[in-house]
């Protein structure tokens, strides 16, 4: 039955306590973010995940790190990190990448609690990441697994948006590290979810400043930029 419950949800949802279900409902009832407001009046949550590997279907979500960019500013005190408790510790090679050791993985937060706390931290704010597809699918997959239901989150992928904003500087997609170097952004600790999110948050500041100068002063403009760029690239 367990594999069925994963498909049909109901039973999975049952693993949420009434209190947890109430918290999820509170989140659901939050008004959607107004994506037509200026960057300077928007809260973005820049997120980064660590997983047991790069396979978005098989691998599991280990940690989420997030930093908020509120009205254009990074709030150092408003950052988020959670390690999800793992039933099965990831491989040694994987541990070496993100540095979250076996015991830390086992001592992590209950996954439902972890994901709920992330939702409560993020609210309905648009999420930003570099290569957001990976972060989006890892988080969506985990929520589906532990909440037993689909949670739709709004993502913006800087990997698509940045080349469009800096067409005069770069041709085509380049790696995150190259962008960071271009704007003199240091990464405190590579492959740490918070540190990566912090670096990406600074890149987000660059993006929204440049976007505003080009008339792309809203989250919606970024979403549309990303969509247009994606379809254009597919047509190539």
């Amino acid at each position, binding site marked *: 039955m367990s594999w069925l419950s994963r498909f049909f949800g109901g039973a999975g949802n049952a693993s949420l306590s009434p209190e947890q279900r109430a918290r999820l409902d509170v989140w659901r009832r939050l008004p959607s973010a107004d994506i037509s407001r200026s960057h300077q009046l928007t809260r973005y949550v820049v997120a980064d995940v660590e997983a047991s590997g790069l396979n978005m279907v098989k691998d599991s979500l280990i940690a989420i790190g997030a930093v908020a960019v509120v009205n254009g500013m*990074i709030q150092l*005190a408003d*950052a988020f*990190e959670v390690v999800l408790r793992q039933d099965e510790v990831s491989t040694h090679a994987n541990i070496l990448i993100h540095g979250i050791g076996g015991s830390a993985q086992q001592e992590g937060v209950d996954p439902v609690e972890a994901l709920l706390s992330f939702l409560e931290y993020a609210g309905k704010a648009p999420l930003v990441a570099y290569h957001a597809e990976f972060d989006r699918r890892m988080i969506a997959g985990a929520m589906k697994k532990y909440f037993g239901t689909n949670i739709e989150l709004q993502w913006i992928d800087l990997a698509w948006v940045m080349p469009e904003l800096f067409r005069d500087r770069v041709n085509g997609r380049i790696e995150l590290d190259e962008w960071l170097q271009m704007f*003199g952004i240091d990464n405190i600790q590579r492959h740490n979810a918070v540190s990566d999110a912090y670096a990406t948050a600074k890149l987000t500041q*660059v993006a929204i*400043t440049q976007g505003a100068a080009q008339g792309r002063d809203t989250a919606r403009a970024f979403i549309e930029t990303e969509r247009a760029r994606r379809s254009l690239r597919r047509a190539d």
Partner: protein
Amino acid sequence: MSSSATKMLVDATVELLKRHSPFDRMEPQALAFLAEKSQLGYFPKDATIVSPDMGPVNTFYIIQRGKVQAKQTGDINVTEYSSLTLGTGEGFPIGSVMARRASTNAYIAIEDTFCYQLPADDFVQLMQMSQPFNLFCTQYIATLLNQSRRQLQVQFSQRAAEQQSMNSPLSAIITKKPVCVTPETPIRQVVETMVAGHVGSMVVVDAEHRPIGIFTQSDAMKRILLPGLPLDGPISSVMSKHPHALSDHSPVYDAALAMAMHSVRHVLAVDEEGKLQGVVSERDLFTLQRVGLRQIRQTIEGATDIQALKQAGADVRQLALNMLAQGVGAEQLTQFISALNDTVTRRVIQLNLAEHDLYGIEWAWLAFGSEGRDEQTFSTDQDNGIVFICTDIQNRDELELRLLDFSQHVNRDLDTVGFTYCKGNIMACNPELCLTLEGWEEKFDRWIRVPEPQALLNASIFFDFRVLYGASHLGDRLRMSLLAMARNTPVFLRMMAANAMQVQPPLGKIRDFLTDLEPDYPGCIDLKKYGARIFIDAARIFALATGVHNTNTVQRIKLSSQRLGVQAEEAAAIIEGFNYIQLLRLRHQHFETEHGRPGDNCINPDLLNELDRRILKESFRQARKLQQRLKLDYQL
């Protein structure tokens, strides 16, 4: 919010800050507070972060990454730089955020820059929390005060090698051991040494190593090559005697001033015993201070007509403005302006002498007022006269006519080159001011014996005379008799003192400043009338009372205070106050003229920042102290 995530960002911030002063000395909990309360902002290249028109500053910025340039934009500033580049770990604008006032500087990102931003309230709390941070901020303010007091010079460049300034002692810029020879050394050997060592000048010293002459490359051309002098003669036969020497403790600007005044290219630095320590050449100064002092002086001295001098007059002004922008202090600056204006005036006189035959007449051109005191500001009109000697065999009326005719032309040409005619007709072409030595003595004697108001006013202008051209001993003689007359007539000095007390510094009992004294300039203070003049008048009285020959206010205060037994620090504070007011005047005049207005002396204290106001207030207090001293000395 998650404590582990925040801790990571806060720790990283603390780590970065700890690499810089004053954060390296701060308590861990204060640093954590700073990091937790900070937000990170991003400013692309060329973005303005803070500017004066943004109003009161409510954020303190610390650069995380990038470069920010601070540029002075305001009318009147106290900082020692005109522009300064800040890098990682440096904070701004400390003064403004403490005082919650608009910044006097504009801060512009000169590359993509990230800044930690701390709200002003948290900044204040941090100051209360952390002793080292508090000390840093208050010391920063104190340094600012100091800087404006002492008027430290510009940081020409960030590079340490170039961080010398016009205020540093000569010993600081002497890098090479001087090359010197004894007077008996044969010319050939001297020239050979100069060629071999690539030196432009050779100092001739006596047995005690005291300089007695100098020989330069250009001397070799003029004095040996062209006359075809034998090379085995002693160097003493061709050297320039009595070279200009200064103590190696003298500031660099003294050397520059000597070069400007005496048209020499080298100044020797000597120690207390007069022994040679080094040679300062004009080139040494210009790597230091990139001003075209020499070019301007050459233009002036080489000018063959008034039109050329007119250009030079404009150059002097521009040079002075550059120096002002570079932070050269008021005392130095007013002396430079006076020295260069002197050079212009002398050249005008020389050009006119070619057309007016004054041969056989012993005469001197006198400068009065601010020019007589070496205290000229940008707005300068003429104040001059002539003193001459009429011997028994000469016809006095005829001499006077010749001199008056000559003066008329000089006054006209001075007007052409930019020194406007004196409205009060204090000019050499006025027969009242073209007098024999006895004539001047009689005039002075009359004013001193009958000190009615007009006489006291005249005294304040004419007693500050200085010989600008011609027989300087006439000036010395006139000074001697003036001092003798003044000393013998105590009632005159008392009247002068009473006169000097008629205007008081505009310090309010409730408000900081009285700004309604000038009906035409509501809200403003006339810095000349209610500031500088109080110092000048008092200094004149002290100088006359103690027999000080100098006319310069700072010199008068220095020398007379010694004779009066005033504490050196007390005198220094008075001089600082005077210099500060002069600096404000110069900056204000600069600003006014840049905006096409005639430079006046009326400033609105509300437009000054908190620091300037405090210093100005202190300066006025010093003026009041001077007046209290007069009151006491003359029982007024």
